Every structure is written in C-alpha cells, then in structure tokens.
C-alpha cells in the first residue's frame, strides 16, 4: 500500500468510528424525544402528578428539580470557587496539593447509589434532616464539587500568566489581582462549567431516592413562607424530582398512563439538559466576545 492509500484507509476508519458515536446519540435523543413529545402539553407541565388515575402531570417534580438545582449550586459553588482559587493560585506543587487533587478525583468517581445511601445514613437519619431537598442538595454537592472545581480551576489556569504579572507589577495584592483581573477573565469558562454541571444535577436520580425522597406532597405555590410545610420554598420537605419520578413511574407506577408519563417526563428532562448545554455555549461565547471587544 502506498502512504496515500494507508492514509485514506485510516481516515475512513476514524470517520466510521465517529459516525457510530453520532448515530448512537441521535438514536437515543430521537427515540426519547419522538416518543415523549406527543405527551407533553401545557396541562402535563402544569398539573400535579396523580397516584392512581390517568391525566397526572409533572408540575411539582419539575419545580423540585429546579429548586434542588438552585439549592445545590448555592451550597457547592462557593466551596468549589474557593477550592479552585486555592488550587490554581495559591497551592504549591507538593504532597498536600496532590492529596487534595486525588481526593477530588475520588469524589468524582463515587457511584451515585453509594453517595445516596451515605447521605441517607448521615443527613437523613443522623442529622435528622429527614427526606428533604436539603439532604438531596448536600448529597448532590458531592457530585457537583469535583466537576465545578475542575472546570473553575481550568478556567483560571487558562488565564495567561502575564495577567498575574501585570497585576502584581502594579502593586496589587494577590487577592485583588485574582478578584479583579483573573476571575472576570475566567468568568465565561466558569459559567459554562456551572451550566454543564447543572445538567448532571438535573438528571441525577439514584442519590436522590435516598435523600430527597420519592414523595411529592401537594405544594402551595402561593405560600412564600419557607418554614411552612406546604410552601414550595420549604427546603425541609421531601421532594421527588423529575428523574426520580421517571424511575418511580416505571418501577411502581399504577396509573394507567404510566408509560406515557414516563416518556413525556424523559423528553422534558432531555430537552432541559440540552437547553443547558446550548445555553452554556451561547453565554460563554457571548461573554468572551464582549470582553475581547468583538474580536
């Protein structure tokens, strides 16, 4: 074979592999969306789930998912930001730093069921938080931290060193340089990281079954008092999320339309996660353009 032929053969083979990946993705997305889309209606999105009769919706589950997401980010973002700044800007290259990095790696590879059971024992039982959004949010923080830390650290790392030197040479403190120069430059990357990790949180089920619970009490969307048990803002109430709902409807659903509820919910879940992904890219690009003066 001539070099030309080998090259062509290799190229074809690589293209074939890529094609398989793309086809798998398209098939999955297509199947979920095509079978779920007909079941999505305004009624489906805005009415509460019913336990026995047909015609239930996913209003509370959808809200729970979003609320859990916000709560998780409120807990995990400051932690991740601090750790990432430390790792990227302050930490030296020593055994302690590599210990932290290994810990973060391990955290990210924990099976979610294990984290769920651990959360159940520690938060739900030991700390008496009960099946609650708060327990769920803390459990999800475990997954979220490694993703966020790594993406923020990566974004900070991508800021050229000359920017740090510029700040320091002007007599600015290290912290002032980080806050005023490095973080704004890293912001598009950080935002993308947050949104991508949000997709992960949104789709998580196993860890939530044991922490946020599987029941969705009827919520009162007019009660803004977060301490009231029926309030939609109460973080101490059990909350079934969309992903958990899909799992539950499929395992023990007794409603006659369980299959279509599951299909519709899956489609909604996928569409929202896709929106997160596209949104991350769009926001990242836009901020980058704005900062670099449209160049």
């Amino acid at each position, binding site marked *: 074979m001539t070099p030309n032929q080998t090259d062509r053969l290799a190229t074809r083979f690589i293209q074939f592999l890529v094609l398989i990946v793309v086809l798998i993705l398209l098939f999955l997305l297509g199947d979920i969306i095509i079978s779920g889309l007909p079941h999505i209606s305004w009624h489906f999105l805005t009415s509460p789930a019913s336990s026995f009769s047909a015609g239930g919706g996913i209003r509370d589950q959808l809200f729970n998912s979003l609320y859990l997401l916000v709560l998780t980010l409120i807990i995990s973002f400051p932690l991740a930001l601090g750790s990432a700044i430390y790792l990227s800007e302050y930490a030296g290259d020593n055994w302690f730093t590599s210990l932290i990095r290994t810990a973060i790696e391990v955290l990210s590879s924990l099976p979610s069921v294990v984290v769920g059971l651990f959360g159940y024992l520690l938060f739900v039982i030991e700390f008496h938080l009960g099946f609650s959004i708060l327990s769920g949010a803390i459990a999800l923080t475990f997954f979220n931290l490694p993703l966020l830390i790594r993406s923020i650290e990566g974004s900070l790392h991508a800021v050229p060193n000359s*920017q740090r030197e510029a700040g320091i*040479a002007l*007599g600015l*403190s290290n912290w002032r340089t980080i806050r*005023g120069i490095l973080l704004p430059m890293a912001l598009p990357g950080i935002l993308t990281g947050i949104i991508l990790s949000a997709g992960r949180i949104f789709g998580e089920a196993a860890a939530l079954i044991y922490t946020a619970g599987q029941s969705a009490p009827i919520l009162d969307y007019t009660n803004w008092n977060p301490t009231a048990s029926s309030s939609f803002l109460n973080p101490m109430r059990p909350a079934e999320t969309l992903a958990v709902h899909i799992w539950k409807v499929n395992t023990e659903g007794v409603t006659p339309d369980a299959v279509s509820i599951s299909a519709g919910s899956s489609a909604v879940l996928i569409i929202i996660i896709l929106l997160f992904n596209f949104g991350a890219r769009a926001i990242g690009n836009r901020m980058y353009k704005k900062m*670099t003066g449209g*160049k």
Partner: protein
Amino acid sequence: MQAYDLNKNHIVTPPGEIALSTNQLQVNYGNSKQASMVNASLSFPRFQITALIGASGSGKSTYLRSLNRMNDRIATVHGEIMYHNTNINSPKVNVYEVRKHIGMVFQKPNPFAKSITENITFALKAAGITNRQELRQRVETSLKEAALWDEVKDDLNKSALALSGGQQQRLCIARSIAMKPDILLLDEPASALDPISTAKLEVTLKELAKNYTIIIVTHNMQQASRVSSYTAFFHLGHVIEYDQTETIFQTPTIQATHDYVTGNFG
C-alpha cells in the same frame, strides 16, 4: 563558545544623582544551587535610560525582575537593592509599595480584558484613588505621556484587547506611569512589535526619560545604542561591563563586550 574570564569586569558609577543601585545582588531560582545572577553591583542614574544587554540566559531579565521584587515567589535574591537609602530587598519592606514606585512593562503586551480607561484606573482605584476627576485626569495624562492619547481618546471605553500590539504596549506603559512611579523597568518591551511600532515606542521612551528613570532590557543592540545613555553588558549571570553607551559600543574595555557588540560572539 569562547570562554571569557567572568570575573574580569569594568563597572563605572555614573556621576550625578543615583535613582537605584544594587550591591552584590545574587539570584537563585527555586532550590537551584547554581546562581542565575552573581554579584551584580550597578548604579542607575536618575532621569536617564539604562540598557541591559546580553545573550539569552545572561541573567539580564532575572536581574531586572529582582529590582521590583517580581522574583519573590520564584527565586531567592541575596544582596542589597538601595532605593532612597532603603534596602528594598529586605523582607520587612512593603513590596506592594515598592512596586508602585518601581513600575514594570513586560515583553508581551498584557493589557487587562477591560476597557482602555479601566486598564488604567483599576490599580489606581485599588490604591485608594476614588475621585472621578482625579481618575479622569490620570487617564488622560498617562495616555498622553505614553503617546497613545490621540489614537484612543474617542474610544476610551473600548476593550483594550481590540488595540494593535504597539498600542497595547503603550497602554501598558500608560498603566504603569499612571501610578506615578519613580522608575520604570522594561523587559524587552519592543520584541513583540513591528519596526514602526518599535520606533514609536523608542520616541516615547526618550520623552519619558525626562521625568522617569528607565531601565530597559533589550536584545536589540541598535535599540540600546539609540535610546540609552548607559549600558550594562551581562554574560552568563555576570555583569561584565557597565559604562556610557557610547563607550560600550565604540571603545569597550573588556574583550567579551567588544566581541558581543561587534557580533563576533559565540
């Protein structure tokens, strides 16, 4: 490379007022036993341009970066750096204050990803200047001094990253002099610029030397001879010769200097 006697040197002390001087400065990077810079004792005349020349790895940038303590986190610097009768190489000295008095401009233009105005006002605000009038005044004066005002005065709110390389470098100079430093250190400021931008920058530097003491590292010997009044030649971490620029380029005392400036080096 021809081996020169590194301990043979010829170093003058310029007459008149001295802005900054170093005494037996030695720099070691990290835990390295091998010093990157040894026994550098130089005095820099006030309101003059001094050029530091030498081959790559000669220690001139290392030396320059020690002068405003930029090497603090990466190297150990021994010896004295005397500024206004204070040894600013002492751990007790407030390095942030030092850097406000001794500004630095780098090889590659490194404006912040902010507007032209904010590039200049950011450090000023951090230093506690909040009066809008004063800030505006400083922006205008420093941009004028850096010969950039006429080109940017209508788009002060535009991102600094949209400027050309030469403009960015002059913005970096403006940013430094807005802090009203005494001394300006420039580390090969023209090496990333085209000849026209370089020429403009050199004119700017000469203009700035009326009010600032300037120390410039350069690879470009023509540049050194064009802009500076004193020149120091560095070789393998040693200062070999320091004298008036004319003397260095026309009648150097040391053989190594002669070989370097005539291009018979290495």
